[in-house]
């Protein structure tokens, strides 16, 4: 039997606020001092978010988005961390932050 009203919210809606918060953190970190602990914590949060978003992307048939999130998860994985120059991390963080924010703009659901 059909239910009236708008469809129930998906995980996309639930992830929007944490995604924007992380996007802000990633963008901000591009201009902040990057201590080792701060970098590790940020990368752990970005990795978890990227894996969740990769799953969401598959469910919605967004294969390019899946690849992007998978790349972010690999780059920020805390188990075998990549070692880049600080300036390279700043650029990567800025890119990840912009992508996260843009991918969660309203109207994309």
């Amino acid at each position, binding site marked *: *039997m*059909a*239910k*009236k*009203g*708008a*469809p*129930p*919210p*998906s*995980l996309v809606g*639930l992830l929007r606020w944490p995604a924007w918060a992380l996007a802000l953190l990633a963008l901000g970190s591009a201009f902040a001092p990057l201590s080792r602990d701060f970098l590790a914590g940020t990368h752990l949060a970005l990795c*978890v978010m990227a*894996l*969740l*978003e*990769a*799953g*969401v*992307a*598959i*469910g919605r*048939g967004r*294969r390019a988005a*899946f690849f992007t999130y998978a790349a972010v*998860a690999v780059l920020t*994985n805390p*188990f075998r961390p990549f070692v880049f120059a600080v300036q390279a991390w700043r650029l990567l963080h800025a890119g990840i932050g912009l992508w996260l924010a843009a991918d969660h703009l309203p109207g994309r659901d």
Partner: protein
Amino acid sequence: MTSGSPTPGRGAWRDTAWLAVAGAVLFVTLKLHQWQTFGVHAELAEFESRLHSTLHGGFLTRHRGEASFLGEHVSPVLLLLVPLYALLPSPLTLLVVQALAAAAAVVPLHRLALHLLERRAAAAAIGCAYLVSRTLSYGLMYDFHMEIFYPLLFCAAFLAFERRRWGLLAAALVLAALVKEDAGLAIAGLGVYAFARGARRAGALMFAGGLSWLIVAVTLVSPAFRHAAENRGYPFASYWAGYGHTQSEILRGMLNPLAHARVLFTPRKLGQMFDLFAGYLFLPFASVAVTVGLVLPGWFILYSSDNPIMNGPILYYGLMLLPFLFYATLLGIRRLARPGPELRAGWALALAAAVLLVQLGNSRLFRQLSPAGLRPNQRTAAARAMIARVPSPAQVSAQVDLVSHLPAASERYFLPEGLEGASFALFDTVGNAWPLSPEQNRALLGRLEASGTWEREAAGSGFVLLRRRPTGPVPATPPGPAPARRAG
């Protein structure tokens, strides 16, 4: 015991129990909510009628005079449900069995993960990944279908194989073979994998037994249960129409490698395969033997077909491949996390956690458990009142989401099927009208009312109950689209 302990013991059994109980509570809740909100479609009624008929002189028949379900699918496992249904004769029995069978599979899967990954946290992540997986959810939330037993039986078989418990392995595989004929191909594939792992005799037996069962089931057992007047070919052969139009053409076509390339690797199917395997981070492909023996058979069944529902795979079609994908994922993690003699616990945990996160992101549970998803259906009371006006037993043709709520003693059809002999017709003019469009549904209602052979018995909240006039002529089947038979 810590999560990093290499020898899981009692604490690990507690994890198994928690996972099983959480899964059972969650799945039973979802199925009962689906029932209460009239979200279950007609196939539940069909399976209940088959069990009901078996208790009343028939043999897995849906309607009087119809051939047994075994003529459609070789699924004698349904007979094992007959005693339970005799004790608890209700459609809810099947829904709860469906939920419990789906949840129970986490027990052997979690034990298998403990065996292969040797760490509690990694095994728990895999258990959780199974419970939240989208493929399981599709199968669970389908009305009722016997493939729901596949994850439990195949996971039990994998665990038995890993522990070299041959008796348990044989029992699990025999039961899996009784679920549906296609299990034969999966068992044969498991045999190939077992052979490659060094269990030569068991592997050869599984390969030969699985293929033999598939051939016997499709060519001997299933035709024996069809009526003589019916086509003796496999009723679902048309799903593989990409290889040919008749059963023999399809079999010949499958010997042609070019036909496989043309049928299997279309852009649409490649995208769907990507979506399916991405959920497991492509770990099932970490070894050739695993890919060939565990992934290929189920993959082939799904994608050699041109049925888009199978390619999804949605409904219950992914349930056979699901346990194989989890087993193959576990073997992939073990391979990557064990480059030497010692398993690297951190790697195993990282990969298992990554699989869990991706499955979680891809899960349907957030939608199902949201307040909107759990909202009650405001029209439930009206639907129940309307159904209560239909005497039992009677032949009734009702809208697809109402059929399962009619008593099993009645001859139940979903509209527009069964109207020619029906005494009652129950329409839902604002709800799900499948396989008719809402407009076709309302037009059919209008035609019946204008025909003079039906009178309106009751109406309200969008429901309309028609009763056939006592002296009216039996109408011809009303024009409209042929009802699409639900896939078998």
